[in-house]
């Protein structure tokens, strides 16, 4: 199986600090992969590299045969790789629906002339997007809050909105940074089921950073473990759990 997303020997230095140290990962199409490691291991930095927020000091990143290190984050999103944020970044003074409808790509109504004329083409596209947004909101359990300002949502609801909004860009792959932190038990279960369904029905690929082990171990086919900026281990959930190095990194010597 060829990989959809591949990072090769990626390095990121901040001044004298090496946050990511020759890290290589490969995620196959349709896979659900986990990225775990103790705090400060470099998981979020690696995410920022993959999503185009940082440029790697060395190494290369490929997505669908495009070399994406060096691209801007909006270009990476348009290629079909979208991320969510560890701390939910909802657009506060916009409603849940507005948050959702911002995301779709190629909206005619984003061009000045079409925006002013509000042509049929714009309205049709808007209706399509609205239907899709309502469908996704229904699944993640936010439909009843569609006209609420995003700032009024609870922590868990904001995390749900992050994922829902990312899906509106019609991605092929999602990078989820702790999608269930702050979510209730019920919300977590709902999201896990949804991720499974998205993979099964639409062939989406996931790379997930998560601290809740029950989420990672039940959801992922493959897990990458990071420690001190390096990839410590890689394998199925079972292999990783039995790896003595991983146990040592988590529990300390």
């Amino acid at each position, binding site marked *: 199986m060829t990989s959809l997303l591949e990072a090769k020997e990626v390095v990121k230095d901040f001044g004298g600090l090496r946050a990511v140290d020759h890290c290589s990962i490969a995620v196959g199409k349709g896979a659900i992969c986990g990225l775990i490691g103790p705090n400060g291991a470099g998981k979020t930095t690696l995410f920022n590299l993959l999503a185009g927020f940082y440029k790697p000091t060395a190494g290369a990143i490929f997505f669908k045969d495009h070399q994406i290190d060096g691209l801007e984050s909006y270009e990476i*999103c348009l290629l079909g790789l979208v991320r969510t944020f560890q701390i939910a970044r909802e657009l506060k003074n916009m409603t849940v629906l507005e948050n959702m409808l911002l995301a779709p790509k190629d909206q005619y*109504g984003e061009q000045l002339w079409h925006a002013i004329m509000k042509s049929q083409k714009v309205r049709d596209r808007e209706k399509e997007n609205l239907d899709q947004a309502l469908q996704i909101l229904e699944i993640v359990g936010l439909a009843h809050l569609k006209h609420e300002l995003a700032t009024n949502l609870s922590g868990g609801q904001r995390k749900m909105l992050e994922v829902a909004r990312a899906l509106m860009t019609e991605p092929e792959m999602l990078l989820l940074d702790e999608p269930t932190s702050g979510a209730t038990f019920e919300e977590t279960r709902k999201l896990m089921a949804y991720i499974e369904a998205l993979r099964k029905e639409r062939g989406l690929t996931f790379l997930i950073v998560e601290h809740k082990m029950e989420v990672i171990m039940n959801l992922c086919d493959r897990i990458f473990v990071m420690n001190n900026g390096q990839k410590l281990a890689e394998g199925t959930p079972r292999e990783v759990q039995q790896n003595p190095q991983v146990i040592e990194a988590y529990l300390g010597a």
Partner: protein
Amino acid sequence: MEGFISFLLSIATIVAIYSILTLALNIRWGYTGLLDFGIAGFFAIGAYTSAILTSPSSEELVFGVRHSLGFGVPFFGGLLAAAAAAALVAYLIGIPTLRLRGDYLAIMTIGLSEIIRYVAVNEKWLTRGSQGIRNLPRPFSGHSNLLDALFYFLLVLAILLILYLISQRVYNSPLGRVLKGIREDETVTEALGKKIFKFRMLAFVFGAAYAGVAGSLWAHYSGSIMPHEFVPDITFLIWVSLTIGGSGNNKGAILGTLVLIGFLQQATRFLPTIEGYTYLVPALRLMVIGLLLILCLRFRPQGLIPEKAVRMEKES
């Protein structure tokens, strides 16, 4: 009686022209969150473009410099050119500045508006320097003074209405959504596949075109323009108007301008001065404006008419 009516008409015209400036700032700051202090500069560009184009050509000596510019273009030509010139300057200035973070953009834009004013002071061949350009034609004139004023007011009002409607359309469109997204969190908006620079530029240029139109209308309203009319005070009065009225809301922008420019700035223009304290009343006026702003920020920070969330329902 006639004097009073023409006084009211002049206030109404000034408020309508300034409302266009407030709409311009609302597009830039209210929608997009661009910290822009350069409105007066684009106002000046519009005014001078229109003034130079619509003046009849002449061969006057001004301070020993031959001022021969003047093209006799009709009013509406000057109006469109004013919008285009302001937009073009905004585009050129936007290329280096719109990548800057908010506070740097603020410094750049206020500097820019002062540079434009000094160009108007110094390039006498073009602008006649501090003498200013006089005897500007006013459209639909040649009747009685009162009728002329009334027609011009109606013209300005019609243009304000059109620009208001365009602004509203943009606000409620997918484009408006992206602009608001940039205001709320540009990192997220970019991560969702939007090219931020392009949209910031669009808001900046669009606002400049509005300010250019206002400049042209101002020039033909007052009949003469001078560089010192375009000091940054205008920019700050517009900021206060927008803040009091309701940033992000076009109706609020116009209401704020009416309250601040109409009631405080213009309606009190002819208050009697107090014997021995010539500067007391004008100074008090500024104090009242300051006080109003503070009270507004303390008790109604969202403005008189706050921004409304766009409700999207299924269109059948």
